[in-house]
């Protein structure tokens, strides 16, 4: 146990078992981004997936909307210590998007409009673990929260759920993304408190 901070009692416990270590609950939906919110309209929107041998798959907005969508209710955990429970999202499963993509890649580098990137193991995007989300709480996803479409990978810290997604690069070797190059953890499991490199 850590040494005790003199005089500190903290909030009444009754701690929620769904809250990972070091996290606190919020009912708000805080926004964290490294720069301005990029303006992206549905007309010009395109999603690409590129494989390690250069093959490229693309979807326009109408093509994305034509894919089967699903609604999920999940808990999200930000590395800045807030967690939000029972958030409702609608989008297309990455299993659906990647169904016809032939690849031997083990890693994904996700690219966003505005230049943001984040890296994940490809297996963390599959098996129902990740959504390309275009609606939050029953409404179109607002730009500051990543609209038109963002990644949703709720089992990892929320910076992995890249906003304003425009492409997914499938790679044989891991390649650190924006925050990962700046000292944040390559994997980011909130239950193991993998906040920073070395955690």
């Amino acid at each position: 146990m850590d040494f005790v901070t003199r005089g500190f009692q903290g909030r009444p416990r009754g701690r929620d078992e769904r809250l990972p270590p070091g996290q606190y609950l919020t009912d708000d939906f805080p926004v964290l981004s490294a720069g301005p919110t990029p303006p992206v309209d549905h007309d010009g929107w395109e999603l690409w997936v590129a494989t390690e041998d250069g093959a490229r798959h693309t979807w326009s907005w109408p093509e994305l909307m034509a894919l089967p969508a699903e609604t999920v209710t999940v808990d999200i955990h930000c590395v800045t210590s807030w967690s939000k429970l029972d958030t409702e999202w609608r989008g297309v499963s990455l299993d659906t998007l990647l169904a016809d993509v032939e690849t031997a890649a083990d890693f994904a580098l996700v690219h966003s409009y505005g230049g943001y990137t984040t890296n994940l193991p490809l297996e963390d995007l599959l098996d129902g673990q990740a959504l390309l989300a275009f609606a939050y709480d029953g409404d179109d996803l607002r730009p500051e929260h990543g609209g038109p479409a963002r990644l949703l990978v709720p089992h990892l810290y929320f910076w992995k759920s890249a906003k304003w997604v425009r492409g997914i690069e499938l790679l044989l070797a891991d390649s650190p993304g924006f925050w990962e190059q700046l000292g944040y953890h390559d994997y980011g499991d909130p239950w193991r408190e993998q906040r920073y490199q070395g955690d």
Partner: protein
Amino acid sequence: MARAAVPGGLSARRAWRDATLVERRPETDSAVTLVLDVDGWPGHLPGQHVDVRLTAPDGYTATRSYSVSAPEHGDRVELTIQRVPDGEVSTFLADGLAVGDAVRLRGPVGGWFVWRPGQAGPVLLVAGGSGIVPLMAMLRARVAGSPPFRLVYSVREPDDVIYRDELAAIAATDDVEVRLVHTRRAPEGAARPAGRLQGTDLLTATGWDGGDPPTCYVCGPTGFVESAADLLVGLGHAADRIRTERFGPSGP
């Protein structure tokens, strides 16, 4: 993008250290500066933040991030804490922690929202409320010969200005311009009536035309940062020269 060089090796930056309060300075009715002595502090850059952890007798811990408000100075780390209504950690730090008491602290954290002394080009700082804190560390790190700085600082009313006297002194030095924007109540006789931040507030009086474009640092609550960053883009600032840091509505 190159890996960012930041002070301290990885293991040094993620180690929890004892941080002993050596001085507390009230800044406004709701903000207080804490000067901490941190054993073996690896140093930091202006704009970086630290994690502060409090531990209760039953082992319960609460951790929050706070921006550092002053440049590197040995083992001293200065934080300015804005009390968050009902804030579990901020109210304890602001009111409960006595000089001589210790908390646990680790860092520095964040290699993006930083200004490196020696970095070329002018700087535009845009602060909303307690978003002034990391920007103050940048202003305080300036030396003679540093590039020009301009601060646009949005507050609700005159009493909310943190670092008031020091900002006035800094504004009197060469190559620094400080502009206050009051959103709810302006001081008597102010040329600018109270109102939310507008594009014209962000235009520089001295003009950087023809020179290097500034690097912009925007810090404040989410709504403020969204709006200020959009205004800057609208004024022609390149999106990749605008760095933002947000305090969520429930933030630290």
